[in-house]
């Protein structure tokens, strides 16, 4: 088990190198160089000398591959993700202060999505072709078809127009006002969570229908198990094995979703940091963020894989 984990963690390294490499070069190919943006904002007429001076100060005059090697060696040798080109703040510190917001949003969304998807999926399978099954399926198709950013925007605009209500723009820290904090995250988390629950619900329903046909379910009935035990103890755990995979696959969706939702609801999380950094072409922030997000996604996937060992006894890591 331990060697398995070590092997898996080591296997992350090439993936991460590859991912950062791509981002590092791609971001520099987007039209609108960071220096141009800086100069245009500061209203300095860009004479060549100032330009070169700034470029040199920021280390952007070196060839791209040298910049990359410098950055990588900083990461590896000093654990240093670099500094923001605009603010000169440490990228890692910028990220760190924003982790709680994004983590809270992502976890809440994930929890909401599972709390909706699994019971509804199970219910729809067990009471197949009843009214509730149809409602569940219709809503889940809507969930797949309706983009969450559209829904998010509607939620921002219409309540404000109709009732003068709008989500708080100021971040309410959990420690100061837990209820207010949860309330603030609830609407964006529900939107993202419901969006993700659509696919999970369909998968849960399909897997439950499949599992309920198995002989061991008949065995459970024949023992005199009541429906609740047949479904929860005997069917659900089997049905959840592929659902866990799906949740793993959804992690990038979740990350992408938080970026968009944070932007819509102005939640100062990692997503908003990313959004601003891309607009400003803050190359070092983007690279640092990509490394960080990539690492998180890969680690979560590792956790998902490890959880098979717990949920499916046939999987044992050697």
């Amino acid at each position, binding site marked *: 088990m331990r060697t398995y984990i070590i092997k898996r963690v080591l296997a992350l390294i090439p993936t991460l190198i590859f991912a950062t490499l791509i981002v590092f070069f791609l971001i520099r190919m987007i039209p609108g160089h960071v220096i141009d943006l800086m100069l245009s904002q500061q209203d300095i007429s860009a004479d060549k000398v100032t330009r070169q001076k700034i470029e040199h100060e920021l280390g952007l005059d070196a060839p791209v591959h040298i910049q990359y090697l410098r950055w990588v060696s900083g990461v590896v040798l000093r654990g240093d993700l670099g500094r923001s080109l605009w603010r000169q703040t440490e990228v890692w510190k910028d990220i760190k202060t924003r982790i709680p917001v994004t983590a809270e949003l992502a976890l809440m969304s994930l929890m909401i999505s599972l709390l909706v998807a699994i019971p509804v999926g199970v219910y729809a399978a067990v009471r197949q072709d009843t009214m509730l099954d149809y409602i569940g399926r219709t809503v889940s198709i809507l969930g797949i078809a309706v983009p969450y950013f559209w829904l998010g925007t509607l939620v921002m605009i219409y309540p404000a127009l109709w009732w003068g209500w709008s989500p708080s723009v100021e971040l309410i820290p959990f420690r100061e006002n837990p209820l207010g904090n949860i309330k603030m995250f609830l609407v964006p988390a529900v939107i993202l969570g419901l969006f993700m629950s659509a696919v999970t619900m369909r998968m849960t329903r399909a897997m439950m229908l499949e599992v309920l046909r*198995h*002989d*061991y379910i*008949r*065995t*459970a*009935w*024949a*023992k*005199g*198990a*009541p429906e609740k*035990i047949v479904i929860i*103890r*005997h069917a659900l*755990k*089997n049905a959840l094995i592929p659902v866990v995979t799906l949740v793993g696959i959804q992690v990038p969706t979740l990350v992408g979703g938080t970026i968009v939702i944070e932007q819509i609801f102005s939640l100062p999380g990692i997503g908003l940091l990313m959004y601003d950094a891309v607009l400003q072409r803050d190359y070092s922030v983007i690279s640092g963020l990509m490394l960080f997000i990539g690492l998180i996604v890969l680690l979560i996937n590792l956790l998902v894989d490890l959880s098979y060992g717990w*949920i*499916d*006894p*046939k999987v044992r890591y050697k």
Partner: protein
Amino acid sequence: MSEKLLEIRDLHTYFWTENGWVKAVNGVSFDLWKGETLGIVGESGCGKSVTALSILRLIPNPPGRILKGEIIFEGRDLLQLSDEEMLRVRGNRISMVFQEPMTSLNPVLTVGRQVGEPLELHRGASIKGALRVAIELLKKTRIPAAENRATDYPHQFSGGMRQRAMIAMGLGCEPGLIIADEPTTALDVTVQAQLLDLMKSLTRDLSASLMIITHNLGVVARYADRVNVMYAGKIVETGTAHDIYEDTRHPYTLGLMASVPKIDQDVKAKLVPIEGQPPDLAHLPEGCSFYPRCTFAVEKCSKEVPPLETVGGIHQKACWIDVRK
């Protein structure tokens, strides 16, 4: 013989399909006495499993339905019980050992948990308490190192061991009736014989009745006191094992004897399959269901359904012809 444990009267279990009602069990009546071993034989699809599942009311609905009949077990008609009352019969008074040892155990629960589960459900045992009993049951079914194996998962068991675990699972609540639906077909002949011996002796210890469902007349000859031969959802011949073997009265039973290897038969003995296919259960022929395949058939067979008639003692047959001539 002693008391009646089970009395089935005129059972009809049909399945609704695109082709109409599939008459899987079509007017079956028989009795089962306390402590007796009853064999039910017949070709694939003749309604053996559906009969057994009907007793436990485990027919999937839809498409299946028990349209009519009575299943009187320990003095109560199971078909009249509420769902809750039925839960207390299943796995408690009647247990079932299923045919496919590979797929009948839950892959994500330990064998010990599954074997002990009836005690959790019916005796209010804790998980731990049930596990202790499960280990005893696994020992009874001669699973080596039962203490250690109880925490294994089904995929860590061989086919024969899983079958033993299935048997153990059926014993925990000391049921009055154990139904073994073809417990052994997937296994080789020696294992098969061992398991049936085991099952027979374990049910004898509990003074329970045993219902063995099989294709194999050899099994029936060796283990059953009484035999029902089924064809197309009906019992066509019934009697003691001796009656069925030594004084066969139905052409279908004769065909079965020639077509199925017996456990103690020389492997080189010639097997003669019965010609033709069993009828479509949604469109049964008029008259006797077996007449299209019957070498004895006469005019009357295609017109009138033969009733089950006594030929002597408890020996009955449903045939217009006297096959001894």
